[in-house]
């Protein structure tokens, strides 16, 4: 089917978005990188899981409370990350894993804020997402979340930046084609936070979205904005059923 898709594209026909396949980026890895991800002793992302475990029981803020004091063992949060982002009815806002950890840190512990993509925030979010490794992505997109979901879908389809490309242009219509030497992925986010060789480090879903926006010369989105979180919700829904791989390894 991939061949048919590409042929249709070369002919200039519009290809239905429904033909895109749900495929984890893991499928595009060579044997060596698969082995790196699969081996917890070799996987560089596990360093952040280890750092997260140390932070988990570390007291912070005026009351000297740790994550452990309220949540107990990190395993208590299994089944959380694969359901994020979620729409919070009280605040009427979407929240992703970064939002939850940052809110806990600032409002419950009343400790110093954890900046986006900081080592401590990545350590905690990687530890928490790692608890759900093997569970299917399963976000709620109906009911109160439906408006945000539609906003995310529109964002995915909207061409942007000087290069005037949408997420869908590449990750849906061109999935499997080769951009220079790289095979275009399906744009799935089931491995985040993940270790990316390009970054020589770990990054969140929102870091990847930022990277993509910059690649098409678009103004990056504020990772706290509802627009950015709506796009993340739509991306998670596109990957529904794929199992969480945190910490995944990608090129």
């Amino acid at each position, binding site marked *: 089917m991939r061949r048919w898709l590409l042929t249709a*594209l070369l002919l200039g026909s519009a290809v239905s978005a429904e033909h895109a396949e749900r495929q984890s980026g893991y499928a595009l890895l060579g044997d060596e990188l698969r082995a790196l991800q699969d081996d917890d002793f070799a996987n560089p992302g596990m360093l952040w899981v280890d750092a997260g475990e140390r932070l988990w029981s570390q007291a912070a803020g005026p009351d000297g409370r740790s994550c452990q004091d309220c949540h107990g063992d990190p395993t208590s949060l299994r089944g959380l990350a694969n359901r994020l982002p979620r729409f919070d009815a009280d605040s009427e806002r979407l929240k992703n894993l970064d939002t939850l950890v940052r809110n806990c840190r600032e409002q419950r512990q009343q400790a110093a804020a954890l900046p986006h993509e900081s080592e401590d925030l990545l350590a905690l979010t990687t530890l928490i997402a790692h608890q759900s490794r093997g569970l299917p992505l399963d976000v709620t997109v109906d009911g109160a979340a439906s408006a945000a979901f539609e906003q995310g879908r529109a964002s995915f389809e909207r061409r942007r930046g000087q290069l005037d490309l949408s997420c869908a242009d590449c990750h849906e219509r061109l999935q499997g084609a080769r*951009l220079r030497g790289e095979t275009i992925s399906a744009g799935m986010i089931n491995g985040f936070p993940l270790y990316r060789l390009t970054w020589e480090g770990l990054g969140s879903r929102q870091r990847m979205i930022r990277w993509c*926006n910059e690649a098409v010369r678009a103004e990056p989105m504020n990772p706290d904005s509802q627009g950015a979180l709506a796009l993340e919700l739509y991306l998670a829904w596109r990957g529904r059923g794929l199992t969480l791989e945190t910490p995944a390894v990608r090129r």
Partner: protein
Amino acid sequence: MPAAGTPAPVPMPSVSDMGPTLHPGARLPGSILALLLTLAAGAARADCATFEIVGDGIPLPLSQQTADADAGRQAAADRQRGDCSICHQLPLPNARFHGNVGPDLSAIGARLTPPQIRLRVAANRHLNPESVMPDYGISRDRHQVAEAFAGQPILTAREIEDIVAWLASLDGSEP
């Protein structure tokens, strides 16, 4: 082959010549269309140009300067400028890392006239709005453009002319 950049008359395809082969979804006008498009939104920019689409080509060069095929080859290879080989097979270094998103252009000069190539580089989505290939010569109606690139098309008029001259010279004989 006519050198791009020379204002000599170029044979224009008639409607029947265009046929349905290249772009089945394109709305090709039966008569000459006078579409004036602003090349660069910033009126103060030196490379600001307008162009006229006739049939499935842009007959006149976008820049008055003489086109330079060698400079076009460099602009096509430059990852910050054309970066054409990210999607197309072309006679440029590291051919094995070339993309396959768009058609093989190794002999494009034998298939298309300079006006046809010019339109496909500058405003390809005029032919097929669904195409992934961006309009390299247009900066209007863009969303969320990064500040450093706001109001500028991807390529300048001169770069487009240089690239058109280089592409028009490709007949498949280069390795």
